[in-house]
């Protein structure tokens, strides 16, 4: 499309840039406000306004958020929960990605009777509102002794993430010509050899997409965190919500904002560093509808 449009006609182009820049401001301002507020003192917040720069830049909001703020009953800041989220996210991302890779491989190159139906099941599973599985899942975790544990959360995220990762890998492998697999079979390669020696080396882009997408989804999750974990095994999203919404004493918005920044940093950093994979994940899942 872009090669057809001439870049002429001044007035309308000014208007276009104007709108785009305005939109960019609208998207950026909340982040700006979040940052700026986090570096203020509570006094500053009360006397100043949202967009004003700090009269005195201070990191007290950050230190409090990290180690002193109250998240419900405890008042040890969110640092512990920050690490909880890592302990939960990393294994869940790795396991769901690996399962997705193998599943995608089978569903694209080793189809069997019923494999399309299985894929349909998975696809539908991407749409299901998790409300319908919360209660039974909680019961099962209890029975397995995994209630309120990080392991339990990992299990939950794997189960409900594998449908997406399988979708990614399956769509990626479908685009790889079947002739490649046929040639390998004739060369004598079997199921696993073909996967490890031929497909896997070609899979770096989709691995990145899956890892980054899963990381973002799992780190940002709140629903599973609040239902299946409480107290020590909470992820940071739950801790953040508790911190912000517990109304003991005076609200310290600088602490709130700092805590929000801390919770947002990992996925933001991932987005800035490897954003293109994130976008591929967004559009890959949706183009199939």
């Amino acid at each position, binding site marked *: *499309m*872009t090669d*057809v*449009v001439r870049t002429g006609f001044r007035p309308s182009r000014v208007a276009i840039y104007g*709108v*785009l820049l305005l*939109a*960019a401001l609208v*998207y*950026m301002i*909340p*982040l700006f*406000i*979040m940052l700026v507020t986090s570096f203020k003192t509570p006094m500053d917040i009360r006397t100043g306004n*949202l967009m*004003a720069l700090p009269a005195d830049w201070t990191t007290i909001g950050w230190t409090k958020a990290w180690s002193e703020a109250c998240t419900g009953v405890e008042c040890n800041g969110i640092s512990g929960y920050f690490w909880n989220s890592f302990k939960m996210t990393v294994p869940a991302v790795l396991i769901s990605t690996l399962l997705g890779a*193998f*599943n995608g491989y*089978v*569903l694209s190159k*080793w189809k*069997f009777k019923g*494999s399309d139906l*299985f894929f349909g*099941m998975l696809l539908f599973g991407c*749409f*299901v509102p998790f*409300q*319908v*599985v*919360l*209660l*039974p899942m909680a019961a099962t975790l209890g029975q397995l002794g995994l209630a309120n544990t990080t392991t339990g959360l990992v299990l939950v995220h794997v*189960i*409900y993430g*594998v449908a997406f990762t399988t979708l990614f890998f399956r769509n990626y492998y479908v685009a790889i010509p079947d002739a490649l697999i046929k040639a390998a079979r004739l060369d004598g390669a079997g*199921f*696993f050899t073909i996967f490890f020696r031929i497909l896997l080396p070609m899979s770096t882009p989709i691995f990145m997409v899956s890892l980054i997408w899963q990381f973002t989804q799992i*780190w*940002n999750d*709140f*629903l599973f965190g609040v239902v299946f974990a409480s107290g020590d095994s909470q992820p940071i*999203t739950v801790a*953040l919500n508790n911190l912000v*919404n517990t109304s003991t004493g005076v609200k310290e*918005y600088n602490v*709130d904002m700092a805590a*929000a920044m801390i*919770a*947002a940093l990992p996925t*933001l950093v991932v*987005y*800035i560093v490897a*954003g293109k994979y*994130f*976008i591929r994940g*967004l*559009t890959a899942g*949706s183009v199939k*509808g």
Partner: protein
Amino acid sequence: MEHIQRRPVRVARAPSRLLDGLQRWLPKLVVAPTFVLIGVGIYGYMLWTGVLSFTSSSFLPVYDFVGFDQYAKLMTNDRWLTASVNLGIFGGLFILSCLLIGVVLAIFLDQKIRQEGAIRTIYLYPMALSMIVTGTVWKWILNPSLGLEKLMHDWGWTSFSFDWLVNSDMAIYTIVMAAVWQASGFVMALFLAGLRGVDSSIIRAARVDGASLPLIYWKIILPSLRPVFFSAVMVLAHIAIKSFDLVMAMTAGGPGYSTDLPAVFMYAHTFTRGQMGLGSASAMLMLGAILALIVPYLYSELREKRHD
């Protein structure tokens, strides 16, 4: 004439019946764990919740059968009705706004913009944030005393008032604002990709025919992007129906329950208010809403395929 020296055939292993059989089963074995996980974790649990929705369970599951009692209770439950209406308002406004903003931004970005990549990155970063973070930030921005209102006052609009967050009639619209801020970039990305995929020869033909650019967009390009529209609506509707995190962070369903949504209702009744049966029924209705969305969509997709 060079004759090929036939090397004694050395195969990896002698053709073994056992190994060949294993190879045939290997694909199925590999997907079996996922099959079990999904079968139980999604379909099994869905069934279980369905069963519970027909019981009178409160704090603990009780497996009596009370027919459609819980569903009837929902229909007369003020809070559920508010939540459902809210979903309609929120969902409708959310989808429309995201579509409008997303399409406009995509079209503008498609006009050979310098620094397009940087601008796209800015539009999309909110999608990388947790809804809790988004909710927390917007809750602060719209803070009745220290937020937007105070900012406007400090900037000179002294009569400006913005207490929507604590106003039970207007609070739902604050949720819409935050959600649109987060998700409109995603719609933009979808449409930009779609626009880029449009066949440029059709556009060239239109320009040779004398059509102006806005007309080309309106009559030719946007209609050809119908599939993208549907995709976007599907995903946005899905987000809307599942919305839980955002509400919990911004208003926790309040003031009162004026910003309640089905997902919040379900959570509250199942896990804090000890009404499992009612909560399960609400979950099943949410599932119904999603089904009502996907099934026609899939049906129309399949019908179109058969048409070709």
